């Protein structure tokens, strides 16, 4: 078991990435499918996420309960998620079960997609939609995406809508699966206590998924639309708001790291400029700032929540702090503290095989080069103040989008 990173491609076109840590007690494996809500036609809004659920139901070899039992009998911590550009199926296990869980996940992502499972699971998806309807912070971000990327699939709801899910048919899902789930469109990432050669052999033996004929379509780059979204929820106590500007894409790795430092400096829960200006004095309930990068667009955001009576005050203070980013740019001890927090979180996070695996797979799906922990830290340490200032300069202009949700009629 040699520590470090190795890559491999199986005969069926599956990319396999393995990062070995002999000191870990467990191993984590994930299949990253390069498809998500941005790849959906409007009439199948929510199909990627619904399909994610269906991959936990009957496969071609066993029924849904047998799949669940198998995952649990391996003692796994297993789950999945759907994002705009990827759908990920993952599990963490003790090393002796790694092969079995990789084979099981591979079987699961080529499911039976039966009409019966589809009908029952539709109800679960509808319940999930209602659950998120009770979470205003979640709805806020959806409102932002809907406004900013209007006319592009990035504007759609990852979960779909009551209407789109109710109308979705199993045949449409099967077609989507055939088009998007292919060995050449997947990455298998494994991290922790594992042997790369063994994992490559196991991966080589996995059945191919899809017929490998041609590559799936790549969704076009979105245009950004300026504009505001307001969602009134009189039943809420707090107003939640988010502002957005254009920022670096995934491909600009240095700028992404600079944006990460900036996000901590500007909007971290404690010790940031917005925390001192807004949450520490009890004016806002929460603040946040960061980068949401895609392969072909990037979004810098600042978010906050407050009572309706404080909204005007928060907006005024926030405007002042954004102006101050230019007048008193990030540098010196303040910048170093943000960098240190970023570095410490990276190091602490690296002690979890699950975190390392997720980073491996996400980077691969987004077309980024592999970075070891040492590479990440070296990159982080090398970021110049000027690079952080350059990202911050993007926030000097008026935001391209504003979204807010809550008891808006009461705001002063």
């Amino acid at each position, binding site marked *: 078991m040699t520590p470090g990173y190795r890559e491999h491609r199986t005969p069926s076109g599956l990319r396999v990435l393995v990062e070995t840590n002999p000191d870990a007690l467990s191993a984590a494996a994930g299949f990253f499918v390069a498809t998500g809500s941005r790849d959906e036609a409007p009439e199948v809004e929510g199909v990627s996420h619904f399909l994610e659920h269906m991959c936990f139901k009957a496969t071609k070899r066993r029924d849904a309960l047998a799949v*669940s039992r198998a995952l*649990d009998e*391996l*003692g796994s911590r*297993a789950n999945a998620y759907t994002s705009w550009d990827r759908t990920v199926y993952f599990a963490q296990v003790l090393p002796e079960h790694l092969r079995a869980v990789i084979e099981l996940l591979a079987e699961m992502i080529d499911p039976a997609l039966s009409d019966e499972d589809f009908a*029952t699971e539709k109800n679960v998806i509808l319940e999930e939609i209602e659950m998120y309807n009770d979470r205003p912070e979640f709805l806020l971000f959806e409102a932002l995406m809907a406004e900013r990327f209007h006319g592009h699939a990035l504007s759609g709801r990852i979960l779909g809508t009551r209407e789109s899910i109710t109308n979705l048919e199993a045949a449409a899902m099967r077609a989507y699966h055939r088009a998007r789930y292919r060995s050449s469109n997947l990455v298998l990432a494994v991290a922790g206590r594992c042997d790369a050669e063994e994992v490559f052999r196991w991966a080589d033996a996995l059945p191919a998924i899809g017929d490998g004929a041609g590559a799936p379509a790549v969704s076009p780059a979105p245009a950004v639309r300026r504009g505001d979204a307001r969602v009134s929820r009189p*039943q809420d106590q*707090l107003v939640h708001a988010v502002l957005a500007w254009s920022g670096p894409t995934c491909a600009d790795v240095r700028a992404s790291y600079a944006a990460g430092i900036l996000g901590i400096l500007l909007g971290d829960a404690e010790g940031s400029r917005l925390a001192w200006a807004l949450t520490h004095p009890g004016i*806002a309930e929460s603040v946040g700032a960061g980068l949401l990068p895609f392969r072909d667009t990037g979004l810098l955001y600042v978010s906050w929540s407050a009572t309706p009576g404080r909204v005007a005050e928060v907006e005024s203070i926030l405007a002042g702090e954004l102006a101050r980013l230019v007048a008193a740019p990030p540098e010196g001890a303040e910048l170093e503290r943000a960098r240190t927090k970023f570095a410490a979180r990276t190091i602490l996070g690296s*002690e979890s095989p699950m975190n390392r695996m997720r980073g491996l797979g996400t980077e691969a799906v987004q077309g980024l080069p592999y970075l070891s922990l040492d590479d990440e830290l070296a990159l982080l340490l090398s970021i110049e103040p000027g690079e952080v200032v350059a990202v911050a300069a993007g926030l000097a202009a008026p935001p391209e989008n504003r979204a807010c949700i809550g008891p808006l009629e009461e705001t002063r």
Partner: protein
Amino acid sequence: MSTPERERLVETLPSGVKLAVERLPSVQSAAFTVLVPLGSAHDPAGRSGRAALLCEMMLRGAGGRDARALTEAMDALGMERDVDHGADALTVSGSLLARDLDQGLALARDILLDPSLSEEELEPAREGCLLELMGIEDNPSEKLFVELRRRYFPHPWGQPLKGDEAGLAALTCDDLRQAAHLLGPRGAVVAVAGRVDPRAVRDRVADLFARWPAEGVEPVTGSAAAEALSDHVPKEGGAQVQIGMAWPGLPLDHPDYPKAALAATILSGGMSGRLFVEVREKRGLVYSVHAWHTTRRGRGDYFVYAGTTPDRAAECLAVLRAELEGLARGVTAAELEKARTQARSHFVMRLESTHARADAMAAQLHEIGRVRTPDEVLEALGAVTLEDLNRWLATRSLDGLRTLTLGPDWREGGR
């Protein structure tokens, strides 16, 4: 299944503080949890929220540093930190690079034993706590458990952890100083896990936590019945009905505790647990349903959560109830083996996290006065036979079960 051999030191320091240190040689981090037995159950009448406000104020200046200097000192170390509390304990915890542990512990000591509690920070801190209450109002699943705890736990254990508006409004700096001056080594616990030298940590902790304001917090004595309140909390505008249930389990040092834990896994471990299968997979009634068993000093309790739309709530409750009752009729060998594998596996995976390990050791020292070694935990799980488990399950009644719903009115005839 074997666990790594880890050097561990568990002892009671001369001051009376209990200490546990576990060495993980292959990580870069260290994590600590300092615990004192002061929680929201100690909030005096009319001052509900004292523990919450104290936690908030502790990070706003300590050891002669004001809020900014304290925050910058912690940020300069890149230390992740939290000051939090439950019903019967308050914790100061941190994770950082192992080489900075000494400084991190010194800051934790200042936060706990030398907080500034200054007048100028009181109003913003109070406002922060009130805003947190509003956030809970907007989060129906969180609000559900505030209300369930009030109805389930005897008073004062069911008092809202984060307090109430009236209590928070009434609290003064003097109230907070009085609380801070109750702290003492009796019942205090320090746990550390990471790339550390246990003896060096012991010497450092003994030195830092030698002097306290008092002997220690008096345990809460006596309890009144839980509040007699309705079974449904109406809340307008919600999309889902929140369902919560609670019933008695077992404390950590009870000889049957492993059975109680395994029963929870059979009910709700993974996607083949009984609740997930019956409520979600087969009937599609929910997205979210789960059960868990949690312990505190002297007791353990089961909880269930589910969220469903109003027209499904009656069926959801019926299925949940049936499953809880069904457990008394026994489990299969396959279910037990699966639960055993899950419990052991998850336990070993948690050993990878210095933060999780420090928290677990602190909780155990607090609840049962000692640390359960990994071997002990795995052996206890392995020792439960099917006959023992089923015999135990057959004796369990649901007499103490409390059920609560929150949200839109789903009840037949309601509205």
